[in-house]
Structures are given as C-alpha cells and as structure tokens.
C-alpha cells in the first residue's frame, strides 16, 4: 500500500505547530497503525529528520497510552484503540490525517503526545476506597451479586485513554470520571465514601478545565472499551444526592 500522511508536528508545548505531509510506501495490510508509523519513523531517521513522537506502550489495547485523532476520529475508524487498528482498515492511495487529542486539559507535549495527568488528579481526588494494607475482612465475607459485580467490572474496564474527551465537542471528562464513580458506587466496599467521592471527583474534573456534558453520546460511541453513558446518569444521581446532603465541610 501507498499512503499520504498529514501529521500534526509541534516541537514543544509553546510551539505553534502545523501539519506536515509525508508519503509512505511498503505498507502491508497486516501492519498495525503504529507499526506503519514505525516505518515512517525509520525512514525519517535515515534521512536525519526528527521522528514523529506518539505515545504507546502495550500495543495490546489495555494500557491506554496510545491515542491519535485519525481522520477526525479518536483511535481511528474502528471502535478500538489505535494500537489495535490494522492497515487493512485503510485502502491503497488513501490520505490519512493524524492529530493529537485536542482538549484544554490535555496540553500538547510534542507532536502527537499530550499530557493526560489531569486524569490522575481526578482519581487522586477520590477514586479509591480508603483502606490501608492489612486488617481487612476475608474476601468472601461480603457476597456481591454476580450481576452487580459484572456491572462494576463493565465500568472498571476504562483504560484512561482520553478518547471520550477527544470525541466530545465540550472536551468533557464525564465518561471517564463516571466510570470510576460507578464502579465504586456499585460495590459494597465503596459505600462509606460514596457521597464525598462523587463530589470531590466532579469538583476536580471542573478544576482541570474539562467542559460540561451536554449528553451528545459522542464519548460512548468512540470509547474503545464500550464504557456506557448510563454511568454518567449514575454519577449525576450520586452527585446530586451528595450535594443535597453534603458531608464535605
């Protein structure tokens, strides 16, 4: 396959940045999208040009490190992560536009690499059960209905990639935040801190500069892990019941 790549290049956070066009040839349909970029980078290196920087690690669709806005869609045309996207999803001669996630709360570091530490700070605000190591009850002491455990697991599958934010016209982080709030609100272990958790995490989300949710569902449609927007509804319930009877003083 022969392709034309239009890639966003930006030297650092303060650089203005812009698109640069690169032709690539010798692309096989079995390559993953990132392997195709590896080929480009080997060519650039050979010519003495700075390789295109992009984030990636597991290349198995689980670490959430890879990103990329491909032809106007986060993680490209399929509902999967960029590392799990293969070149057989593209056709010979196609032009592919590659951009970083665009959101105020995810500043660009270089080229296609963005800083997603805002997600870490949302978790730090309350995305945990406050138990220390040791002194906890036996694992089977509290039975949890399978249906509830399964729902919690559905929400817990979020990989923290940020595609939901990138897909949203308001750059809202509701899907990400609500996935964690839901997981813990569903489980008996999460009950004690249920109210303060929702409140604190939502406050942090706002403080980071993520936008408001206007229920367009774009996040769910692009989430590679199928996180459902019913989680957002659940978080809203958690949040409103929390502010009504706030325990945060």
């Amino acid at each position, binding site marked *: 396959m022969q392709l034309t790549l239009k890639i966003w290049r930006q030297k*650092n956070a303060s650089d203005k940045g812009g698109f640069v066009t690169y032709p690539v040839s010798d692309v*096989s*349909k*079995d*390559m*993953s999208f990132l*392997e195709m970029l*590896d080929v480009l980078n080997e060519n650039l*290196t050979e010519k*003495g*040009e*700075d*390789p295109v*920087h992009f*984030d*990636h*690690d*597991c*290349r*198995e669709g*689980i670490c*959430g*490190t890879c990103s990329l806005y491909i032809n106007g869609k986060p993680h490209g045309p399929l509902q*999967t992560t960029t590392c*799990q996207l*293969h070149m*057989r999803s593209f056709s010979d001669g196609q032009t592919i536009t590659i951009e970083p996630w665009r959101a105020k709360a995810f500043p660009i*570091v*270089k080229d296609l690499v963005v*800083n997603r*530490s805002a*997600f*870490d700070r949302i978790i*730090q605000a309350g*995305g*945990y*059960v406050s*138990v220390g*190591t*040791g002194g*906890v*009850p036996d*694992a*089977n002491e509290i*039975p*949890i*209905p*399978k249906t509830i*455990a399964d729902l*919690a*697991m559905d929400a*817990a*599958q979020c*990989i*923290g990639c940020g595609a939901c934010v990138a897909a949203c016209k308001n750059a809202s982080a509701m899907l990400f935040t609500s996935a964690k709030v839901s*997981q*813990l609100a569903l*489980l008996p*272990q*999460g009950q004690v801190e249920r109210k303060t958790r929702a409140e604190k995490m939502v406050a942090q989300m706002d403080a980071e500069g993520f936008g408001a949710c206007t229920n367009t569902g774009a996040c769910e449609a692009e989430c590679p892990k199928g996180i459902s927007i019913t989680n957002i509804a659940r978080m809203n319930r958690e949040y409103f019941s929390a502010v009504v009877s706030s325990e945060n003083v």
Partner: protein
Amino acid sequence: MILDSKIPAGPLAEKWTKHKFNSKLVNPANKRKYEVIVVGTGLAGASAAASLAELGYNVKAFTFHDSPRRAHSIAAQGGINAAKNYQNDGDSVFRLFYDTIKGGDYRAREANVYRLAEVSVKIIDQCVAQGVPFAREYGGLLANRSFGGAQVSRTFYARGQTGQQLLLGAYSALSRQVANGKVKLYPRSEMMDVVMIDGHARGIVTRNLITGAVESHSAHAVLLCTGGYGNVFYLSTNAMGSNVTAAWRAHKRGAYFANPCFTQIHPTCIPVSGDHQSKLTLMSESLRNDGRVWVPATKETAEKLRKGQINVNDIKEEDRDYFLERKYPSFGNLVPRDVASRNAKYVCDEGRGVNETGEAVFLDFRDAIKRDGKSTIESKYGNLFDMYKQITGEDPYQVPMMIYPAVHYTMGGLWVDYNLMTTIPGLYALGEANFSDHGANRLGASALMQGLADGYFVIPYTIGDYLASTPPKPVDTTHPEFQKAATEVKNRVDQLLKINGKKSVDYFHKKLGKIMWNECGMARTAEGLKKAKAEIKQLKKDFWSDVKVLGTNEELNLSLEKAHRVADFIELGELMIDDALNRDESCGGHFREEFQTPEGEALRDDENFAYVAAWKYMGENQEEELYKEPLVFENVKLTQRSYK
C-alpha cells in the same frame, strides 16, 4: 563476598512469623523522618509505595510512564493464584508452595516460596477491600479457575483483565497517598543510576523525559520495582517500554544479577507476520484446553500449504500430526509451557511449520466445535477469537488458529536476600525485577501474586529492620556522589548524541533480538552460545560507533530514551549468554541440547547445579565473576518432571 540469603532458622511454616517478630521496628514518630524512593509503579511498586506511605514513611515514586496506571502489569490477562481453598478441593499453603517449587524445576528458594504462598491469601482480601471486581459465582462468592501446573482451582480473575484490575487497585491506593501528601509522584522520569554513599544506596539520578533535565533525588532506601527484561529479545509479549536499565545500572554499582538466562517462552502467541512486527501478542493459555495442536505430517504437505497450493481444511486426518498428543499421551495439549514451546520449535525446525514464514503451528478448534457446538466455544473464548481475528484477519471458527512461542517473562533478575535486599545495602528489588520465587520456570498466575506479595506484605516489614539501624538524618543531594553520578549520566547522553552514525537504534535492537532468540532462546548449545557471545561483543562495538540518535537532550526524545535502553540490553545479553553457558544442565525454561534424556526432555543436574548463579560486575568489558548460593531442599524431594 559470601552470599547470605538471611533465611531465618526454624521450621518452614514458622520462618516468616518468627522473622517478622525478630525484625527491628521503626517507631511511628520516627517513620516520618525517613524517605524511601520507589522506582516503578507496576504491581510491585504501586503496592509498596502505598503501603510504606500508609505506615508513615515519605515516599517518592518514579515511573517513566506518563501515569502509574500504564505499567506493564496492566496487560496481564489470566489471573492471580492464592491458596484460599475456597473450592474445598484440597488446596493449602503447602500445596501452592509445592506446586511453585516443582514448577520452577527446583531452582528456587524454599523459604521465599513458602512465604509467597502464605501471604497469597491476604492479597485477595486486600484487593477485594479496594473494590477490585473479581469474577463471582451466582451466590455472590468469588469464582476460581484452574491454570497450568496445578491440580486445584486457585486462580482468581477479573474477566481477561486481571492485571488491569489489580494494578488499578494498587494505583488507587497509591493515588490516595498522593492526595495525602505522603507520596510524591514523578511521572515521565527515568532512573539512570543509583547513588551510593559509604557503601549504601542513598538515592538515584533521573532524567526528566520531557525536559531532559538530569535530577538528583535522595532517600534512606531505594526500591527497584522496574519489571522484567524480556525485551532483550526485541520481540516479546512485554510492553514496548519494558527495559532493564534500572536493574542494570544497579548491577554496575554492585548489585549481583541472578540467573539471567532463565527466561520463559510462552507457547501460545500470535506468530510473527513480517519484519515490521514490533511486538507479539499473547493468546491465553486456556485455549489449550479445547484446541488441538498440530502440523502437517510431512515437509512436502507443509510446503504446499505455505505456498498456498492447498487449503488447510482439505488436509486429511492421516496427514496431520498432533505432535503433543502423540508424544505426551497423558498430558497431551496441556503439557507445561516450556515443553509445549520446545516441541513447536522442533516441528518447525523439521520444515513442517505453517504460515508464510514456516514458524507457526496450528491450534485447531474444529473438533471442539463439532463436539460442543459453536456457541459453547464462543462463550468460552469469544473475546480471544475476536482479538485473533482483529490482528490476523482470519476467522478461527473457520480455519485453525496459528500460534508460535514468544518470550514472555524473565525469572532471572537482581539477586535479593530473604528481606528482598540486593547485595547493595539499602537497595531492594521487588516484583519481576528480582529473581526470587520462580526458579527456572514460572507457573501461570503467580507473577501477579509475587508482585503484590512483595509490595503489600513483605517490604513493609523487612525495610524497617534496615531503617531502624540507619540514622534518620536527611541525605543531602549536594553530596559529591550525586554530582558524580549526574555528570556520568550527562556524559553518556552527550556521547550517544555525538556518535551520529548511520544505523537507527531499532536496527541494533532487532539484531540483538535475533542473536538472543536464535542462540539463547528455546534451545541452547555451548557452540551456539559461544558464537553468540562473539556476535554480541561486535554488536556492542558497532552500536557505540554507528548508532544514529537524532535531536537534542533538552526535549522529549524517544530515540535517545531507547538508545539508553538498548545499550544496556546489549550488555545484559552478553551476561545471559555467560550464564547459559555456565549452566551445564537443562532445567525449566533453560534447555541445553547437550543435556537431555533419551526422550528429549530436560535433564537436570542437581548434584552440580542446585544453586542460584549470582553474577558480579567487574568493570567495562571485563568478564563477570560468578557467586553461587546453594539451594537447600529440606521440605520437598527433588524429582524429574514427567508428563508422558
């Protein structure tokens, strides 16, 4: 130096309890005067950092990732073992201990493995309390599955994402301590060296991966939780960033490296499809429960198939060789990982491999689908079949899957004593970075167990014993040793950027990987290893004179990052070869062709090789010195493994 494993005296089952009691304690008011550096935030690092911060220590946690949640632990699929005996099927701490020692082909320490089995039960309690959504039965209690090398059901799991859920649990505990101000997090910071003052580890030097700044950080103890080194083979199931740099720099500062040649090669991975391949994907071992492994019976048929002249589904039953079922009638397709991998290699070496490359065997579900129906197979393996289809473009319901072994895990690592301390006082190694618990072969679902055991339940006790005899005086980063280490790092960066050669970093990494895979992979010979050693020496020379690293230090520079790592991999590769050459026996994942039974199975030599091989760095381009820690077995009887 004599290697002192510090294994406590007394009966096996009482060692850990006694040891905890005999260890010195740091009083609560003093704990806040101590600083501990934790490098790595995978299962081992995140659990250690959180637990130590909860105790009151001031923790600094480093990771080269952008977030602690991205560590390679996230990718573990299958599950985590624990001797809970919830299934009432005869499991016990002793049985888990025994299975692990035997699975490791009798090359691990009894006392460590017993402790691992003992604390395994607490790990599950801890994770459930954190909100880890393990799989459950309809009655609401935890579900278990069985895994290779065990006859009981003791594996806990969270769908196919156990590592993810356990890591997110540990990450949440860590995040809570960050919020409490007890842990300071340093993401995108790569540790480049350990700093030693008066013979003790007192800090590290890091490179900020965004700005290139070389920074000094001091502490009273340093924990390396930096994972395994499987990427020395270039292609492996490890994440792209996994590397040996932290452990290797510590090694060069005096930490002995143990059993470097013990690597695990997993039999069921998606085969290499071409030169562009950057990593290999694991397909769960559970597939071997229903899939049948085979290749064409003759070279000629295999060749026709590779050339596309015949269709796989047209190959008649009598022209198929179900080689595992044929050679191992009692275990069949369920032989342990090392045996399954080796046999796949044999049939491919005979020219009977499939796929365009000839380096693959079939894993066929035709008979299982016929027997149980497509929907049953779909409910068991649906997600795996989908993943396979996504990567290869082929539908495993219609044609057999193709699989081939791939490097998966490294049992070797920094030598540690019972306290998890390396041969450098104050420097500890946890998780896959140490060598401690898996001997020559790791059983499935036991790496997650070990990482969390080390971090949640071992280090919080053993570190106190060391710190109690260390004055809580702050360590000053203006000490000349910090300056010296920082200057060395800067010089190395400059050197790499100055070479301006012709070949990319990946070129060297791929070359190293080929040498290691061919000569120090599934089967090894003295002759091949010697040849490989010469090749690696040459590769090292070429690297330092011809590598091309673009850009500058003062920016995010992925090729510079990688150049550092590959330079260390090359040196490690040579040590792995020395270790493999020294071990004139076959055991677990280490198979020396010269040492096999008449049936072609691994032949151990317990009389001469029942020891841990710990290597001491002797200086640039010097041969390393071997120190032996004898392994004493008081509670198990050494036997030859047989799966016939």
